């Protein structure tokens, strides 16, 4: 666990941490036979960068994240993790799911531990794994609730366990599919700040899918705006210039904020 408070600024190496190279994806369609969701899409993400993928609903954001995670294979093109093609999900690509996807028969801590042990080849001892799980639950402020089952936790707490689990894996890249989308506004607000803090402390590469413009502006270094589907593609690549470490007030009162926000909302609504 490298707990540095350094800001994720410039790329450390030239090779992208994660890249999509001309990927396309479609699904069988009842009437049309086949419906392409994602048109030819390419982008690359540097190591240590926080990139948000944003787009109108139906633009294939979640599909794109599944391709990046290796959960689905692109119809053409490829996804590359540190210049190697991704052909299957791997522990190097951590995923925070849209729904929390905690195993309801395990406690919060057991859920995190399961993630550390599931592949059967952990190089850590049982007590080290235990300490690691507790460390991450503490970072998302769930130490008190670590022995509760998901059914006994609120929606926000459940998703925090999901986040702790993904971080505990120590994967190079963390993929988050609308992790806060199902939460109420107040909880979402708090968790955004927690995510901000974690992502600035942890030297990792982050990819976030969201439909929340303010969330994107608060958290990311760069925002990829997808066009309205079908055949969505990257409409615009927007750099988010706010200095790190960030805090919400500073970001939201910055002079660029409103302009960027207006630009993004314009792109999202004019997409089709």
């Amino acid at each position, binding site marked *: 666990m490298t707990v540095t408070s350094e800001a994720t600024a410039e790329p450390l190496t030239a090779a992208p941490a994660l890249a999509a190279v001309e990927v396309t994806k479609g699904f069988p369609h009842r009437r049309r036979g086949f419906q392409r969701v994602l048109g030819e899409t390419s982008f690359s993400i540097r190591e240590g960068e926080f990139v948000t993928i944003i787009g109108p609903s139906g633009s294939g954001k979640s599909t794109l994240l599944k391709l990046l*995670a*290796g*959960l689905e294979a692109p119809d053409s093109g490829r996804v590359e993790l540190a210049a190697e093609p991704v052909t*299957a*999900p*791997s*522990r190097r*690509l*951590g*995923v925070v*799911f849209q*729904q929390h*996807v905690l*195993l*309801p*028969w395990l406690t919060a801590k057991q859920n995190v531990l*399961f*993630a550390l*042990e*599931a*592949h*059967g080849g952990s190089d850590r001892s049982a007590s080290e794994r235990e300490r690691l799980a507790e460390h991450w639950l503490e970072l998302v402020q769930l130490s008190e609730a670590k022995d509760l*089952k*998901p*059914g006994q936790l609120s929606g926000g707490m459940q998703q925090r366990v999901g986040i702790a689990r993904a971080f505990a*894996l120590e994967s190079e890249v963390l993929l988050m599919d609308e992790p806060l989308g199902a939460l109420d506004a107040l909880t979402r607000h708090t968790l955004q700040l927690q995510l901000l803090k974690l992502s600035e402390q942890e030297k990792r590469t982050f990819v976030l899918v969201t439909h929340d413009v303010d969330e994107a502006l608060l958290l990311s270094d760069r925002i990829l705006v997808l066009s309205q589907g079908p055949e969505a593609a990257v409409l615009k690549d927007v750099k988010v210039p706010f200095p790190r470490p960030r805090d919400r007030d500073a970001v939201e009162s910055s002079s660029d904020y409103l302009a960027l926000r207006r630009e993004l909302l314009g792109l999202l609504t004019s997409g089709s």
Partner: protein
Amino acid sequence: MTTTAHKEASPQSLQDAAKRDRAAHRLKAAGLFVIFFVLFIGLWQLATMGYDDGGLAPTPAASWQRLVEVLSGAFTHNPPNDVGIVFHLVASLQRVLLGFGLAALVAIPLGLLLGTNRTINAALEPFIQVLRPVSPLAWLPLGLALLRDAEATAVFVIFMASLWIILINTIDGVRRVNPLYLDLARTLEATSTNRTLRILLPATLPGIVTGLRTALSTAWLVIVAAEMIVGNRGMGTFVWTEWNALQIDSIVVAILIIGAVGFVLDRSIAQLHRLIPKN
């Protein structure tokens, strides 16, 4: 709830009112039960009244007397002809639990496999669909011919009666597993052992428990019929020998005992529902 809204309804008084409502409901149900019970006995008495000189139709009084006799001689053991009801009951329960247990051992792993593997499932589906609707009793002669043993045949019939039910419910349970759990297993690179035992099996429990419960009830239904044919002991054998002795009172007693034991069996296995995690 018929709580009238008082001006100052304290939580305590509301709670008391709810309690009174529940008590009243229970009292009414109990009163109605007594009325229905008396009605039932009365109709039974009426229906059998004309026959009591012939001795065949079981009157309530004669059945009651027989029940007392059967229960007081429950532990007699002078084989082959004079065996207490407890020994019949134990014989039936043994066959049911053995056949049912073996079926569960086969059907649960097979169900997990078929539920996760679409190709094998499609290949085996015709077997399941054709064999499932067959009355388990149809397997009985086949069992006798192949196994040449009455005891093994009874267990085999129960096995067949339970197998399909547990199998189909397990497959169905696997299909209902949240597909994201399997995505999670993939992103964690879970070993197949971990995926099966620590994700799939617990997630399929609701289906498995439903299957086990239905199968056990069915097995208890089937054993009585099977024992009429093969058993040298058992509740079915008891029913059949009593019929041959024209002891119809005993049949009423047997029905009562079979029903009561079936109820207890079902309640016991329903405890498995506690294993199912609530989400």
